[in-house]
């Protein structure tokens, strides 16, 4: 949405994603991956359009953008029902804080409390 240049996860300017560079094998996956900064930009746009929840999702996404594919998938798996104990979820939250991914850590803790009450822990 902004007029200034948009950078990919790799730091490459989005305007550099051209067929020429593709043909010279200069583009890698991180050149077509969104950056946390850009997700924050989108969060602000969502906020301005009456959807703070969508903004919050983009901010959690900005944290996940720092993580590997495998770690994102493992996080999802841990939150499925009966996958993790209360201790495991707390350990996960601590790990997330270290990423740093404090918003995702907060969501995990919130889930852990609900899971404990609703019998959804392992």
């Amino acid at each position, binding site marked *: *949405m902004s007029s200034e240049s*948009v*950078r*990919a*996860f790799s730091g490459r300017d*989005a305007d550099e*994603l*051209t*067929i020429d560079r*593709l*043909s010279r*094998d200069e*583009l*890698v*996956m991180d*050149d*077509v*991956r*969104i*950056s946390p900064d*850009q*997700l924050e*930009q*989108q969060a602000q*746009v*969502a906020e301005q*359009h*009456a*959807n703070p*929840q*969508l*903004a*919050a*999702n*983009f901010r*959690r*996404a*900005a*944290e*996940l*953008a720092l*993580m590997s*594919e495998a770690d*994102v*998938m493992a*996080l*999802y*798996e841990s*939150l*499925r*029902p009966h996958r993790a104990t209360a201790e495991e979820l707390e350990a996960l939250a601590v790990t997330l804080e270290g990423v740093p991914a404090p918003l*995702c850590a907060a*969501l*995990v803790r*919130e*889930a852990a409390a*609900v*899971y404990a009450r*609703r019998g*959804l822990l392992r």
Partner: protein
Amino acid sequence: MTDQRVGRIRFMDQQRVNLDGFAHEDVDLGLIAMASPHDPDPSLRVEDGRVVEMDGRPVDDFDALDALIATHGIDLSVADEAMSLDDVAFARLFVDPAVPRAEIVRLVAGTTPAKLAKVVTLLRPAELTLAMTKLRARRTPSNQAHVTNRLDDPLLLAADAATAAAYGFREVETTVPVLADAPSNAVAVTVGAAIASPGVLVQCSVEEAMELEMGIRGLVSYAETVSLYGTESVFVDGDDTPYSKAILAAGYASRGVKMRVSSGAGAEVLMGGAEQCSMLYLESRCVSLARAMGVQGVQNGGIDGASVAASVPRGVRELMAENVMVMARNLEACTGNDALMSESDVRRTSRTLPILLAGSDYVCSGFGSIQRYDNMFGPSQWNAEDLDDWLAMQRDWGVDGGLRTAQPEEVGRVRREAAEACRDVYRYLGLADFTDDHVDRAVDAVGSKDLAVDGVEPDPMVVLGAAQAIRSSGLGSLEVAKALLECGYEAAAGRVLDMLAARVHGDHLQTAAIFDESMRVLSLVTDPNDYAGPGTGYEPSEERQAEIDGIRQARGVEDLRKDQALEADGSFRVLGPAAQGSDPREVVIGVSPGVGRNVWQTLSGLSVIDALGELLAGLEEEGCVARVVRVNGSLDLGMVGLTAARLSGSGIGIGLQGKGTALIHRRDLPPLANLELYSMAPVITRDLYRLLGTNAGRHAKGATPVPARNPYTDEAIEARYHTSVIALVALERACVDRSLGNEDVEVVR
């Protein structure tokens, strides 16, 4: 005998609508569309900025859905105002054009699930249509297609994806009968869509974890099969919780992949977990949850459970109310019309029509653009055989249902290019080799059954091998773009790259985003719906309106003139002015002004010469003397016949119009009376013209002929021929010239 139902009832029992299941309401099973007596009364109590009671349930009893909704989903700054608003007054805001969308969105953000369900229950069908017109997020409507086949055949998938894109679908959803084939399907559909159009979003609907993996790898550009359910027990049966789904949503966004969740009536009933609540209330919980989780959109309106909702009273109304709740919560609405909900063409049209008229972010969340048997989601509400119907409905109402006519040459061209590109890419990437014959078959195939050679279908191991190679090599869309480029498909390569570049910007992550064909993002942000009554809101551009109006079957006078000219020959020769005959055996056949000049073929397909030939033969059999006269002064059949009768020595005449209608007239009758009339030109056969000739001869001789019965048809004969009739009349009208009088004509056969 007495037990036997009468024929009228037996006949009705055989109609297709009676293949549908209709259920009595059963509250215990949740078989109730709206307003179950067990739906909670709306309530919201807040203490110290924290929800302590929602819809009658105290915080300590909150299930996982309640907990996430209460913590994240309700705007407490407007909750008091919204919850205390009278339900009827609230419902009126939905339809009042003077109340802007933003005001509804503001208030609804403060409502609980039970409150919103209660308010939309008050909306009648026409009011739902108006509410949808006003509340959908994006101004420009759109549509989504299913592209799948029984064999997961990549070449056919590519050709069909290209076809869907050519018809205007801006999202294409594929899935697999064999899970492991998924990466191959994603690549094939991506290639096919890119051949036909820039900016087509592609998804491959499979199990959650695999779908996420493909999204992260860039093999798909959006995801939709992220299911929500209205009760905790069903949610957990589906192996997820609201929290795991919330993380999944963030996971997609973290890689710049658009996603929406999927819910809709009937799922809880089918899984035996409706907890005596109405479908609308449970769906209201799903929609509230979707907003609370922070996803941009919802696919609902029944989906797989649409026929469950449709089995109970007001069920179809409930399906539309679900969509309106999504829009009111400021989310993208992908409005069902997905799984086939009835065997009856009338019922399925009835279910979809109000949404088509209102316009939606996606009118269908899965128009089956392929054969029903090839739809691996199951047959859709609308399928390949309905594409022309859809285009005609858009044109009839002057509305944008997201589709456009693809010209036959264009469909042929993009199918060939897509199948060849897919073959070349698979070969280049070392995934599989396909023969030229396989390409040819995929291009021409109506469906996957047409791919078989001597009854043998393509080897399924080829697709499986390709899919495994994609997965194990970590191949993604960058490699697909490169392969397209290396194989000489530069435009398509650029389009795949553009979709990847779009992820870096993330503008398409905003609510209700699609790309137009110039790669502009149309969304709540860039293309907000601004409907505020007549004269406002979405109106197709002139160019778009021309697409909607210009279906390929439309014809005009010039088309007909050309068709008629193809049949022209030199068999009519004017002899001179027609005089009054005196032979009592004479019968004059009057023809209308265009016959043998610019009109040569009747509506039945018979040439005017053949029709005349039969009339002449019939007269000859009765021993009459026939004369053909062109009546130049009138194209009215009665006047043509009466003129012929007055010129005839016997006082009996036959009138024949170019379109094929014919009658017998007598000189002392008024113009609009006649002895026998064939009015149904399209179904008049040679035998009937012969009989008309014979009967005219008998009238001339004073005998009493057996009148011919007009042929009967139950087809929509007027719909089929009226455009031709109007054009034929225009051609004949151009030949009317009173000054030429009546001319004797010789017909050389």
